[in-house]
């Protein structure tokens, strides 16, 4: 914090009491313009003044709004719920709207890249279609039989607790694009699809577990998981992703024997 205070103190002026300290931070961003004559990715550095309360997303906004309007990235709610702005920040997948600059050592340039394993469309925007294709394939909706009840489908607190962790997923793709098996050829279903299958497989009201287990029993399904734990580390919602995958594996084995 000493460096921060030195930067903020202009000569002959004592900083205002209670003012948020400001500092200069350099963002090293991986850029790609598909419309350039020679479309090739390159690094570009921007230095902006930021405050101690700023997140990476605030610094990127400052660049886009005040320095270079062509910088392209996704963001929607900007508060860690919509899952639009997952990116690789200092080599780890995070949400730009949840990563505080002061936590990332702003004295050194902060590197920002698009998430890996998905085709880059422009700058930090990737084509999420392969990711959502896997998500759709596990049928992420309630499957039941018979007539719909006239009241709610009841569930005990314990039954709800069983799959509580995996309901937290916001589909940001931070886990799937952190998985080295997914990086290879992109055929693996990926942690996010398995987490969302887990959410329904272990839901007492759902009757589609059999079909979902059958889908994930594919050679590109849960058996490609090498328990690397990158997904668990990357998840901005703190879901125990690897554990969920192992639980699906166990359900498959008990089903087969």
């Amino acid at each position: 914090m000493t460096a921060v205070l030195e930067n903020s103190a202009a000569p002959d002026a004592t900083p205002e009491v209670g003012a948020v300290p400001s500092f200069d931070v350099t963002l090293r961003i991986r850029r790609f313009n598909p419309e350039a004559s020679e479309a090739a990715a390159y690094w570009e550095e921007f230095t902006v003044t930021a405050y101690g309360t700023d997140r990476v997303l605030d610094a990127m906004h400052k660049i886009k709004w005040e320095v270079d309007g062509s910088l392209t990235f996704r963001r929607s709610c900007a508060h860690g719920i919509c899952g639009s702005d997952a990116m690789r920040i200092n080599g780890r997948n995070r949400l730009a709207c949840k990563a505080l600059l002061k936590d990332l050592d702003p004295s050194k340039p902060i590197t920002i890249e698009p998430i890996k394993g998905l085709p880059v469309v422009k700058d930090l925007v990737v084509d999420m279609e392969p990711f959502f294709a896997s998500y759709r394939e596990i049928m992420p909706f309630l499957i039941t039989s018979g007539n719909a009840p006239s009241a709610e489908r009841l569930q005990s607190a314990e039954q709800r607790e069983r799959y509580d962790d995996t309901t937290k997923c916001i589909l940001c793709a931070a886990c799937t694009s952190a998985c080295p098996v997914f990086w290879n050829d992109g055929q693996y279903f990926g942690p996010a699809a398995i987490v969302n299958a887990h959410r329904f497989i272990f839901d007492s009201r759902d009757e589609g577990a059999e079909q979902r287990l059958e889908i994930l029993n594919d050679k590109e399904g849960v058996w490609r998981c090498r328990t690397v734990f990158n997904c668990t580390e990357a998840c901005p919602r703190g879901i125990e992703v690897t554990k969920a995958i192992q639980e699906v594996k166990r359900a498959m084995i008990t089903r087969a024997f």
Partner: protein
Amino acid sequence: MSDTTTAPELAAPRAPRNRRSTRTNYELYGWLFMRASGVLLLVLIFGHLYMNLMVGDGINAIDFAFVGGKWSSPLWQTWDLLMLWLAMIHGTNGVRTIINDYAERSGTRVVLKSALYLAFTITVVLGTLVIFTFDPCPVGADPELLASICFP
């Protein structure tokens, strides 16, 4: 003559391909086998090492006669056969998954896996043949080449 040309249909990069056709329990059994054979191999390999290196004269006792003696007993024949087959299938399956994880093009994958399966077949066939047909004193062999245990 038509002069309209259409670009060839290209699959989107990294789009999922060819699922549903492969839904068997093959990978499930493969995953289970790795765990079961791993535990069994621990017993087999350390039993083997204990018998060969610790019991009696230890490592100094190992010579042609020692191996010949072991392979005349059905227990050690079965033990070594089990060790050979489990270790080879366990190892080959492990390398197969590594190839699947690291080889990006399907051509590379086919070449590497073919080489792997060829090596597996040669080793297992040769090893099995030796364990079952091993005879320390073949009849009618040149006495110059035979071990001393063949002359009681």
